[in-house]
């Protein structure tokens, strides 16, 4: 477990956080720019001095009233927003830079493992100058992994990349998520990255933690509508139950129901994660018939809240226990008399399979 408590006051910005993070899985540190995400990461890395701060990782004190472990003694890996490769070293020497400085008894993985995980074997003998933005970031991630860190810190590793480069790196980040035994802190302001990669979410606003918890529970909290705005929606874990090749569809089973999506390549039984945005869910009080929409669920209304858009309301539903969120107009809510406890039919226009 990671315990972190930091208080910092600059003239225009204050950070005041008290966090307890799980020691496995990816924790997304999510928030708008200026919310203190990067500062929090820098505090954890020891790059930002925080008198009075406290930090322990898996029972080892990195910082408290008496101790301050300097950055180079903290067993962490850090990936900066821009790749920040050493321009005077080749790709291979960049990767070796940190690894060489870790005593061989503490090395869990050789260079080969991180090179393979990030798919950068063909780049090893190149100089850093000729690399594309995506390649640079992959090298930077491999370099951070090569020090066998006990905690991996990623500071918006995709933020400086265009959409195509993001798509190039995301699969590697997903592999990290699946393969790594260590906790990962992933700073991001992009809800789609959080939905794809995170297991836990820490939501920051103006230097304060507004919410922290599991991904599914946090994303389905209506009181956090401001943070997610247009991207409000739920992420659901599922298993591939069946492929229907004639209709080119795949059925995913989740706790409380199943959903049809376009045929996926993965085998039956694979774990998948999909996302349904609130704006893609509409409600009906009677079972819709003669509709082209494939995914229709019977649901119970749990909670109602105003959306960030005037005249719109968010409706939290339970589909066999799994939370869904719908965004409908206030007028429809009145006319259909949707109240907590109502029984409704939810029609889902679009399901995004994340992986």
């Amino acid at each position, binding site marked *: 477990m990671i315990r972190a408590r930091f208080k910092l006051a600059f003239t225009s910005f204050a950070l005041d956080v008290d966090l307890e993070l799980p020691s496995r899985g990816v924790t997304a540190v999510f928030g708008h720019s200026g919310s203190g995400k990067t500062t929090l990461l820098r505090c954890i*890395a020891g790059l930002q001095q925080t008198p009075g701060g406290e930090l322990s990782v898996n029972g080892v004190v990195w910082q408290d009233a008496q101790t301050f472990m300097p950055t*180079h003694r903290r067993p962490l*890996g850090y990936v900066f927003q*821009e790749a920040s490769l050493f321009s*005077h070293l080749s790709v291979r020497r960049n990767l070796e*830079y940190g690894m060489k*400085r870790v005593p061989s008894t503490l090395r869990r993985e050789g260079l080969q493992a991180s090179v393979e995980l990030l798919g950068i074997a063909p780049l090893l003998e190149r100089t850093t100058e000729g690399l594309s933005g995506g390649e640079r970031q992959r090298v930077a991630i491999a370099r951070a992994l090569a020090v066998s860190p006990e905690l991996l810190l990623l500071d918006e590793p995709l933020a400086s990349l265009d959409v195509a480069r993001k798509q190039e790196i995301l699969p590697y980040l997903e592999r990290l998520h699946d393969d790594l035994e260590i906790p990962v802190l992933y700073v991001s302001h992009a809800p789609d990255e959080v939905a794809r990669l995170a297991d836990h979410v820490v939501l920051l606003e103006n230097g304060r933690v507004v919410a922290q918890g599991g991904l599914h529970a946090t994303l389905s909290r209506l009181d956090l509508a401001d943070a997610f705005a247009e991207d409000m929606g739920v992420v659901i874990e599922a298993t591939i139950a069946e492929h229907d090749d004639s209709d080119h569809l795949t059925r995913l089973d989740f706790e409380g129901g199943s959903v049809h999506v376009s045929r996926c390549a993965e085998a039956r039984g694979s774990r998948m994660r999909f996302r349904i945005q609130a704006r893609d869910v509409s409600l009906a009080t009677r079972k819709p018939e003669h509709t082209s929409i494939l995914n229709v669920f019977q649901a119970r209304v749990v909670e109602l809240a105003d959306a960030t858009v005037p005249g719109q309301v968010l409706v939290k539903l339970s589909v066999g226990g799994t939370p869904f969120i719908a965004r409908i107009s206030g007028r429809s809510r009145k006319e259909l008399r949707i109240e907590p406890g109502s029984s409704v039919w939810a029609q889902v226009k679009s399901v995004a399979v994340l992986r």
Partner: protein
Amino acid sequence: MALSDTDLGAIWLTMRLATLVTCLLLLIGTPIAWWLSRTRSWLKGPIGAVVALPLVLPPTVLGFYLLVAMGPHGWVGQLTQTLGLGLLPFSFWGLVVASVFYSMPFVVQPIQNAFEAIGERPLEVAATLRAGPWDRFVTVALPLAKPGFITASILGFAHTVGEFGVVLMIGGNIPDKTRVVSVQIFDHVEALEYPQAHALAGAMLLFSFLVLLGLYVFNPNRRSA
């Protein structure tokens, strides 16, 4: 027009002086440049200004003060006498000390600029990759500042070769001890030995050109310095 033995002696002396001064300045100037590029102390301004003084000060003024300080009644002179080193003025080592001061900004400023251009990021990256402060300095800051060091060496060397006023004040004109090329040319001209002056001046011109050519050819990344 061949160079005379005294000319060759002056050239040899000048080269020895400039080489020694450049090496000393790299040793002294690097920590000063590092400190100036990283400190947030209020002393940054005053110290930076002192280092830069020789850029604007007439060499004779600098030479005068150094002469007074290193003379028998100056505090440096008393110190060197107590240490049994004798007096520095009108000696080779006196010239070395004076030249170190005189050429200081030409070495410190390019290195300082190069260190500043690196920024904090590469050093932070190195820290997250387990490199301690000295390790970061040697394996990241120094290599990344290489263009600055090349510029600093060449400018420091060339500027020491070219000094005249400070040499006259501190060193006088003693053959093989303090008579450097620039003083020798002055002597030739004063004695109306124009052909000899031409030969030596021509050699200096060629030397300076080759130095600067080297600077531009072998250090094409000067803009990053």
